[in-house]
């Protein structure tokens, strides 16, 4: 469908690429072409075959059938080194940095013939300055922020002067400011003739950045389009192949106060965290409170102080009128306050354990999965199956390790596990982070349904669109302080910006 006029002067063409894994046809006859200097989006739900496709281009996976050309010549990379030599570079979603090694060592590992350490360090400084991504080559990667870590990967690619740069979910861990910097870098690159193959779930970003999009569904190219001419919703529907369900509910009168924090202050338990300063909030039954703000402004701490992982130094936290600040997480769960933290692997789920075991971990008290110290596996398995079914978690079965699920599916499981325990108050942090449009919509719907049934829901998120869509009232965290919540309806972008920037209560509420 790409048309012959595009193929003539293409940088890269893919023709009938096919790759099968046992039981799945990951890519079926995928064909498209990339022009020099274009940003080409690859769209699809989790499991649509995007990763397999780019791994074939990067030489990590051998296609079963089909051809690729680069600059008109046959391109069959046998390994990533061959792909790099031909001018293809890739920024990975995870798994490609070495925490204990320095920035320079990390970059050297991604190059085939790195120069001497000193020369490499000066080239890193040079290139990172030129693209507005300052980076100190001697720092240990483990100490860097998510945005800085990504810079390491990008600089690693840029040092090889790639003709094609593949980016897999590059913005999922970045703050909006960091995304802006990244986009500027990418535009500078394309103006120099580099093509970019861009994978992301963030459709607004794709509309802002990409000139062309190829849409994959179940391993097949189903459509191509110019994303600038489509709305985010139209793009999502192309990916899903169906009308996108927009979360909806009937507005209800909020009930009694379910959870309230007053004057809560807490020094951050982690070294690079943000202290909470005099945070007060109230959330009522049947209401969704949205808390926005740029990452690292105290979101993790706020969740921890509500879940019971950390205790407030000053102030009080009451659940249905009862002071709970000194209670453990388990005791809070028993009283109906459930939480789902941001980090799926390691915080809200144990990656090496099965879904059944993970269901037990937070469900043991409320679902009565433990009987006089003995685990009731049958009941636990039923609970896990109930989550899988109700939240459409795609997995071969509840015996599978949590870590083997895709991000979106695990997120559905983690949220579902809490929702099905019928909480009185549910606090979630980044409920749809790295989740595709359809899964995100179903997670949001489940939160709304929960509120409709009378629970109080607090959603902490960096996705403003999400908060505007589902929350009744909105507030924002800024350097550990919380703005006074205001009704979401009729809130303007300027007002939100002011709240995120830490404006005084009076100015915003006016």
């Amino acid at each position, binding site marked *: 469908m790409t048309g012959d006029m595009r193929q003539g002067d293409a940088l890269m063409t893919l023709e009938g690429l096919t790759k099968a894994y046992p039981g799945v046809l990951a890519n079926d006859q995928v064909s498209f072409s990339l022009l020099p200097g274009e940003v080409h989006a690859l769209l699809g739900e989790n499991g649509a075959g995007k990763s397999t496709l780019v*791994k074939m281009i990067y030489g990590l996976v051998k296609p079963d059938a089909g051809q690729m050309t680069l600059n008109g010549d046959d391109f069959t990379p046998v390994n990533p080194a061959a792909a790099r030599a031909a001018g293809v570079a890739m920024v990975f979603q995870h798994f*490609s*940095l*070495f925490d204990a*090694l320095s920035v320079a060592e990390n970059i050297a*590992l991604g190059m085939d013939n*790195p120069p001497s350490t000193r020369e490499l360090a000066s080239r890193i400084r040079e290139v990172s300055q030129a693209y507005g991504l300052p980076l100190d080559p001697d720092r240990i990667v483990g100490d860097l922020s998510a945005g800085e870590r990504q810079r390491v990967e990008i600089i690693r690619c840029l040092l090889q002067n790639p003709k094609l740069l593949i980016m897999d979910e590059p913005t999922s861990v970045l703050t909006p400011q960091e995304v802006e910097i990244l986009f500027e870098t990418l535009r500078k690159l394309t103006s120099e003739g580099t093509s970019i193959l861009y994978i992301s779930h963030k459709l607004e970003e794709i509309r802002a950045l990409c000139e062309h999009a190829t849409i994959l569904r179940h391993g097949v190219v189903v459509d191509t389009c110019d994303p600038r001419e489509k709305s985010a919703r139209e793009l999502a529907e192309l990916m899903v192949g169906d009308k996108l369900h927009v979360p909806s509910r009937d507005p209800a009168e909020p009930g009694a106060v379910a959870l309230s924090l007053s004057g809560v202050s807490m020094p951050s338990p982690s070294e690079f965290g943000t202290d909470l300063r005099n945070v007060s909030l109230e959330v009522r039954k049947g209401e969704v409170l949205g808390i926005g703000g740029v990452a690292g402004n105290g979101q993790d701490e706020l969740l921890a102080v509500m879940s019971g992982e950390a205790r407030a130094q000053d102030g009080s936290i009451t659940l249905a009128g009862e002071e709970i600040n000194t209670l453990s997480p388990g005791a809070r769960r028993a009283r109906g306050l459930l939480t789902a933290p941001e980090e799926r692997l390691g915080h809200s789920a144990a990656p090496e354990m099965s879904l059944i075991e993970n269901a037990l971990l937070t469900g043991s008290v409320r679902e009565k999965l433990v009987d006089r110290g003995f685990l009731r596996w049958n009941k636990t398995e039923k609970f896990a199956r109930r989550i899988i079914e109700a939240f459409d978690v795609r997995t071969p079965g509840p015996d599978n390790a949590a870590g083997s699920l895709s991000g979106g599916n695990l997120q559905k499981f983690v949220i579902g596990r809490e929702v099905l325990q019928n909480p009185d108050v549910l606090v979630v942090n980044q409920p749809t982070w790295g989740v595709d449009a359809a899964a995100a919509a179903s997670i949001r719907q489940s939160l709304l349904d929960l509120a409709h049934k009378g629970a109080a829901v607090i959603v902490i998120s960096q996705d403003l669109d999400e908060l505007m869509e589902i929350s009744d009232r909105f507030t924002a965290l800024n350097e550990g302080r919380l703005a006074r919540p205001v009704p979401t309806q009729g809130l303007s972008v300027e007002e939100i910006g002011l709240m995120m920037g830490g404006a005084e209560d009076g100015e915003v509420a006016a």
Partner: protein
Amino acid sequence: MDLGQINPLLLLASLMVAATPILLAAIGEAVVEKSGVLNLGVEGMMITGAVVGFAFGVNTGAPSIGFVAAAVAGAALSMLFGVLVLYLKSNQVATGLGLTLFGLGLSALIGKPYEGIKAPTMAKWEIPLLSDIPVLGPIMFRHDPMVYVSLIIVALTWYVLTRTRAGLILRGVGENHNAAHALGYKVIRVRLMAIAFGGACAGMGGAYISLVRVPQWVEGMTAGAGWIALAIVVFASWRPWRVLLGAYLFGGISVLQLNLQAAGVPIPVEILAMSPYLITILVLVVISLRGNHGAPGSLGREFHATH
């Protein structure tokens, strides 16, 4: 009690001899662990090296051939571990323990005919000029060649790990095998080579006990040296020079406590006998309290190449 009969020069000189087996085994294991594999079979590879080295040394009359044979035997045994762990994905801890038990049994079997025989002596190398330096000369420069070989191996290991691309790749593989694989490095091949190096070093370390230190074959003669080597690697934070420090500290105190026992110091023998273990661990713990500990990120983890 007569402390006067302890000759400090002799003590320091014998320290290097006492420490060499552990040093060899530990530096090999440090490389294995840097590549992300935990091989608990050090003791088994040492004792196998000890018996094979002894057999070849006795039969050929040349200890140097014994050391080469011991290195080959250690490496061969380690390849058994490597295939099980890297290709058949068996559990590293269980396989390593099994390797130790296997090595102890195998060595007893091979060693039966060699009991009670004395090993051929290894000539000492008196390094010209350096060995004539007063005090330092006799301590440091009048040893058998394996003492120098072990020091050269430590220096080379440090150089390769920190200064060369091969070393960087090895550290990368040990730090994050998924990332290394994604960048196109051969994780399994790198690890197999590291395991072979570790096996060869452990084998030579064992042969040093049977050919130089004791020097004869006694069943079970490594007596836990492999375990001490493993502990030293951890407490040395996987750094070659600290491994050297730990091994020499352990060797030094072992020799000193024997001398103290001989001199009749009124400290219970049990306490003297345990002192090398206690002090070595204490000192290395204090060192590793400061700064980063640097356990390789993928140490002991199973690696599945993802597609």
